């Protein structure tokens, strides 16, 4: 009998000055930046909406959500489209602006260390931090993200 495979296929999403690590299963697609339509009255971290698969998908700056300067689309940016957070309508996709092309990571307990919490931004949107090959990455708290999106 083979040993249980505890690897999690993940995606490292480069942000400005930090990175996110998310399960690949949470990501619907990575696309190039496209026309961004502003949403009047939205918070500063809501960069706007993009048309994707016949849906209006909100694009957010995760940096802005955790109290850092709001990032804006650059020529190297990518749009990472996520499946809706739990409890939302099937069409409620959302997207996070990535500073560059996300990188696949195959993560297991043997390949990562827990990051020193004092080195992480003080935000409820960060569940924890990990260190893989000496690179620090933040793991988002999807429940907290849900609360921030739909207060």
């Amino acid at each position, binding site marked *: 009998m083979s040993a249980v495979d505890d690897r999690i296929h993940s995606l490292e999403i480069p942000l400005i000055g930090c990175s996110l690590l998310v399960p690949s299963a949470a990501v619907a697609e990575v696309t190039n930046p496209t026309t961004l339509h502003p949403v009047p*009255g939205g918070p500063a971290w*809501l960069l706007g909406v993009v048309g994707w698969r016949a*849906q209006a998908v909100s694009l957010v700056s995760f940096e802005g959500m955790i109290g850092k300067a709001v990032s804006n689309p650059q020529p190297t940016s990518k749009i990472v489209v996520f499946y809706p957070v739990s409890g939302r309508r099937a069409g409620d996709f959302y997207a996070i602006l990535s500073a560059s092309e996300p990188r696949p990571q195959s993560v297991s307990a043997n390949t990562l260390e827990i990051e020193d919490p004092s080195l992480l931004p003080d935000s409820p949107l960060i569940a924890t931090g990990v260190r893989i090959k000496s690179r620090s990455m933040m793991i988002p708290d999807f429940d907290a993200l849900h609360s921030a999106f739909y207060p």
Partner: protein
Amino acid sequence: MADSSQYLCLIVDQAEYLLPSNASVAIEQRDALTAERGLGAVVAWRQTRQGRWPAFGLNAFFQVSRPAHWQRAVFLDGGTDAVGLVADEVRLLGRTDAHVVPFAPLGPPPTRFGHLFNAAWVDGQSVTLVLDPRSLVGYLRSLGGSA
């Protein structure tokens, strides 16, 4: 799920928005309204037998503004009195022109009446947000300008 309602397309501060056409009680040309010369939120008035309806100007951030080049005002059913929004242009879309899908803006509602948008027309990569008439009426009323 596509919506078969008919929509008005409004251009406000150079940006396009849709409004369900059944939310509108009147669309007036600028010439038919009485300009408000003050510095308040009301840009013009529509005179009616019962009184007058205020029309407000908004900028691209939906903050109070006094736009110079507006051409029409759309008045929305506000219960007792209608309330208006001035626009650079207003046109009625054909029933099959706009395929509207539900859309929930992220973040806290910007007004105590809720989010200003509740749907979107997505045409390829182009997105036009659909105004929620109830929130828009509440928001415009909160700007003042009683008759």
